[in-house]
């Protein structure tokens, strides 16, 4: 299985190891294996693997993880620049489950 990696040195993921309580929730929710447990605390294995989905930060009970969460979608960026809220953007889910991006709150993709 080839492992796909995006641009280097751009991800905004940050972890405060001093604050970490070692619950492991960030490791469980990360879909890119960016975070691992080391010495009873979370550790960033490779920041370049991070896609900034924000699951780790959302599920950290002590706010030890921070990331500028967003959806890496060019169409969404274009739509925001043009001041549009919706478009024919696809949004990929769990298993090839592409759906409308659905933007009631104008956040994220389209």
């Amino acid at each position, binding site marked *: 299985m*080839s492992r796909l990696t995006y641009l280097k040195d751009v991800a905004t993921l940050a972890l405060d190891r001093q604050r970490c309580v070692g619950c492991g929730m960030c490791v469980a929710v990360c879909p890119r294996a960016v975070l691992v447990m080391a010495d009873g605390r979370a550790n960033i294995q490779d920041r370049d693997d991070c896609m900034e989905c924000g699951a780790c930060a959302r*599920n950290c009970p002590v706010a030890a993880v921070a990331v500028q969460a967003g959806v890496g*979608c060019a169409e969404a960026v274009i739509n925001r620049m043009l001041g549009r809220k919706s478009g024919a953007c696809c949004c*990929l889910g769990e298993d090839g*489950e*592409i759906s409308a991006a659905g933007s009631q709150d104008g956040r994220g993709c389209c």
Partner: protein
Amino acid sequence: MAQPFVVGVIETVIGPVPVVSAQLSLADRWGTVKVRLDFGRMDYQVEPGLYALGAPGARSPILVTANYKLSFDSLRRHLVGRDLWLLVLDTRGVNVWCAAGKGTFGTDELAARLRDSGLARLVDHRQVILPQLAGPGVAAHRIPPATGFTVRYGPILAADLPAYLDGGCRATPAMRYRHFPWQERLLLSPLEVLLAVKGSLPLFLLLALLFGLGPGDGYLRKVFAQGLAGLPVYGAGVLGGAFLTPLFLPWLPGRAFALKGAAAGLLVAAVLLVVLPFRHWLQNAGALALVAVLSSYWGMKFTGASTYTSLSGVKKEMRLAVPLQLAVGVIGLGCWLAAGFLLGG
């Protein structure tokens, strides 16, 4: 709404609960095909609420999902022969991951749905299993204080649920990693190509109208002739960006999608120009530029359907790629227009 996949009702302490089948019907499968071809993709929904799969009881696990019918179908078809409760959240017809990113598959919706469903009286355990990709939307630690239920994150894929459930609700690292295999990229390609064909059409028509401006008689005749000449360019650009780029993603050079798209486009354009060269070298140069730009643009758009691009990265690549695409596009158009004048009608 009419829900033909509901095959019955079971009476429980909290009232009747609709029962769904794990077997997908012909209508379910036909619905999947239609959605993949962009028919009714924006409104393919399941009524939110509680469902029973098989004959669940007080000890049966509770699985939570989105009310996008493709997600719902994917979940139930992997759970043949099992007895489970399915709690469907109102994500406005959007799949789990995207809805979590939007916040509609979120902490408040899950908490409200858990309280209103009456599940606390229906089961004698206090655990719900969420798809892992709900993570961006749900703060798991906020659910117990609000509902009394604790959240466990299951695997990413519904296909791994049987192994997860049988293994005592433990996910392996492989279950927790979002792969992006070629089979899935291929599955996405009909929709990508359709969107690119539709999205590139205005540009193609504009090209044809511009090409009528050269010398010679009969504006419309020239529009038609040059428009036809532009058809392979249009087709090659779409093929490169919306089909080859997704499919050969790991093997195309570079990390930026715009670069991968441009590479795929140059490859297709090279083949096109060897097999079907145009009359004038300016046309050939213009075709090369336009195919590369179109392919680069649709390749860049595939960031949205990929599983590993970050917003910071997309912004970074777009800052460089979009001005370049515009510049090369203008050069390509200029080449072709110039050729039109030189060749005449």
